[in-house]
């Protein structure tokens, strides 16, 4: 067992401070240490995207990030995107358009989609499909996921226009 490191993280707006082995994977930090179980483990090789979080403003697969690499980072998970009384537009859109079935990929999927829409608020279907290609879903065939994300984009744009 290697020497423990002092780690600080900001997760969903809350400061976290702890000692951890540098080899600890960020997904385990979140799930085991902090009890944030929204992000899931599907492959441990960066392929499936179930563990997707936003780390310092970028979509990151937390199953292949050492907590040592994440020291000092600002992290958002699905739990930080919305609350039961104030859901993120994507959370509502996924339900409205049947963008999920077993739900296992959903937290990573929505977290990634939220970042995609920040980067490109008005994507084409093709851009959504390309931008979501790092997140695998085994249930839906993606058609309704794409529909959900396009609908969320339209709604977010409508809200923004109304505000302007």
């Amino acid at each position: 067992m290697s020497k423990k490191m002092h780690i600080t993280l900001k997760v969903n707006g809350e400061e976290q401070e702890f000692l951890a082995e540098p080899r600890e994977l960020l997904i385990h930090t979140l799930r085991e240490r902090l009890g944030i179980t929204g992000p899931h483990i599907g492959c441990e090789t960066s392929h499936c995207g179930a563990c997707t979080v936003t780390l310092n403003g970028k979509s990151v697969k937390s199953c292949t990030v050492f907590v040592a690499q994440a020291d000092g980072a600002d992290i958002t998970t699905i739990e930080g995107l919305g609350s039961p009384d104030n859901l993120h537009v994507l959370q509502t859109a996924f339900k409205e358009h049947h963008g999920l079935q077993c739900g296992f990929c959903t937290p990573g999927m929505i977290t990634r989609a939220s970042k995609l829409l920040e980067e490109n608020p008005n994507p084409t279907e093709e851009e959504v499909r390309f931008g979501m290609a790092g997140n695998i879903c085994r249930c839906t065939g993606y058609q309704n996921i794409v529909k959900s994300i396009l609908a969320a984009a339209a709604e977010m744009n409508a809200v923004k226009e109304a505000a302007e």
Partner: protein
Amino acid sequence: MKDEVTTRESRVDALGGMGCKRKRVEDARFTQGKGNYVDDIKLKGMLFGDFVRSPYAHARIKSIDTSAALALDGVIAVLTAEDLRPLGLHWMPTLAGDKQMVLADGKVLFQGQEVAYVVAKDRYIAADAVELVEVDYEELPVIVDPFEALKSDVVLREDLVAEDGSLPDGAHGPRKHHNHIFTWEVGEKEATTQVLDSAEVVAEETVYYHRTHPCPLETCGCVASMDKVNGKLTLWGTFQAPHAIRTVVSLISGIEEHNIRVISPDIGGGFGNKVGAYPGYVCSVVASIVTGVPVKWIEDRMENLMTTAFARDYWMTGKISATKEGKITGLQCHVTADHGGFDACADPTKFPAGFMNICTGSYDIPTAYLAVDGVYTNKAPGGVSYRCSFRVTEAVYFIERMIEVLAIELNMDAAELRRINFIRKDQFPYKAALGWEYDSGDYHTAWDKAMKAVDYDGLRAEQAQRVEDFKAGKTRKLMGIGLTHFTEIVGAGPVKNCDILGLGMFDSCEIRIHPTGSAIARLGTISQGQGHATTFAQILATEIGLPADSITIEEGDTDTAPYGLGTYGSRSTPVAGAATALAGRKIRAKAQMIAAYLLEVHDDDVEFDVDRFVVKGAPEKFKTMKEIAFAAYNQAIPGIEPGLEAVSYYDPPNMTYPFGAYVCVMDIDVDTGEVDIRRFYALDDCGTRINPMIIEGQVHGGLTEALAVALGQEIAYDEMGNVKTGTLMDFFLPTAWEVPNYETDHTVTPSPHHPIGAKGVGESPHVGGVPCFSNAVNDAFRAFGLRHTHMPHDHWRIWKTANELGLHG
């Protein structure tokens, strides 16, 4: 009267019952990251289990040294077969009547086989300890080819050979060779041979349905917690059949069944992967019993792909005969089935090759014969039904390829060949040559609708032009038109012929109506994404007249749910859905008596109307179901017990037979082997439709899994028995980028024997989709002389096909 009609419609709408696109009640927790999957369970003092696995496909184990692992700080125990032997748990029964090593007992039979089980304080220490266990192996000759296995002197399963060298019968009768498991025959062998020998036209082909894996996004896992104070074992896990798991755990552990509570929490997809019982479950239970604290075991992806539950691996050789006009006269099929090192197929006991005898498909074939030989090889055990009823995808793939090959032999259009051979509507119920009685169908209507929707003649004209253009050097892309008409057999099944380990394949529903007019219903099934909490409430809303939003559906806890055989083989709607409707009708029958009492009329003088009982001929006199529910709890009604509850155990009289007509249009680049799916039209007939939104979602998902299997997904082995596709880098799961948009359509032919006429749909798109994609690839090359090429049609294999046909100049 107009008012009355509007009111009735609005009352129907308010229920959110059958037929409406009800939004899912499951989604709130899943979209907020509040699902509760097995790896989310965290218990005080919980330990982690992890396996030492064999790097060899066939080897004798000379010794296992666990001392270095045990010396590591945080390691609690390392179990080997020797530790399990005194408990009789070093082997366990399989669902197929064979037995399987829990931990390697002297030898290993496939790469990744469980050799030792490490228990440690956390998963990192467990992983470190796995590396420290020293196993001394002596390599043995490896057999990965089932045909070679049947000729080889190498004995894979010494435990199945008597001391005098003779072969005792297996679970399914005599064995022909030491690596042979069973022969299963259905139909008329002699008669079929005669028909084939005297036929005007015979087409012959060998169709390999390659080995693949269900690969749900969540792997298998469990948490076992033995409470030594009260003697109760709680087992959470990714179980598609929690009640069956409870019974199996009881039978092999000796713990009485009432002291075992099995809980399937949220499950991250199953597709057949989570039907079986795996060594990880047994070892975790033993470890918890030994340590007295909870033990968690979660597979990683590589373990999942390498060890738990492969699917398919069927070599199917067929002959199909017809008149010159194309009327099919006979079908023969022989299967060599590679079952791996142990026969752990998840099939009903009396069906060692599942329902492979549905291989006459949608066609009126008077004479047929099927024989299946199961074979041991040095591959992982399993043989589960990956998004299909038992071996139905193999059967449908076989017949739909044979039809295409026959069309080539006859020089006939494959759509027309299907059309003239479909079982006609007036022939249902139809007794097929291989034994099944198809309950209902209207294939011609579905087929004609599909052909019209895609402008089939127009597509063929375009394709002919493309061939001309290709030959003239104007394009390097060919066009393939894939056709499929499938008939599934789902909803296992009638207890008279369907059981698993002696457990009849009925299912169940128990309903409790609460005094204020809401309800809870519990079922013997378990959702893994199908949305049962949404759809079963819809069935009940229509049956009992309470809003779906006021009905909680619960599944997966064996302490509270009635006994049932679980969710796989599209059986939830056909079996538990029927139980739900019938339990609802029991509620309604009692409600009718209560209503009559409250309305002071005879029972026969009231009738059910949406959400109430009304006095016949006097609709202004009524009692709503909500009022009746309250009365059931607060009135002393002569001759009627208080309360409003019902339970129904449903033993289906027959299977259900969903069907569909699919068309796929693709362009294939002959120089790169790349495939562009231009169009996919899917018409499904699943009988009565409970929730069209969910049906459509199931179709999209099933088609995408079909696309994966047909176009690239496989579990491949090298000649040493090494798994070449152990990660998602090599094992193809399509992303949003590779998947097209699908067009869905439907006809409705209700099942005549199901209480609400529903047939099940989750697996149809997979079963129909695989041959449809594959037929499209094959069809693209038909003009250049191709009869058949094996799946998976990845870019490399397509390129090779084009190359072998001389299309690269």
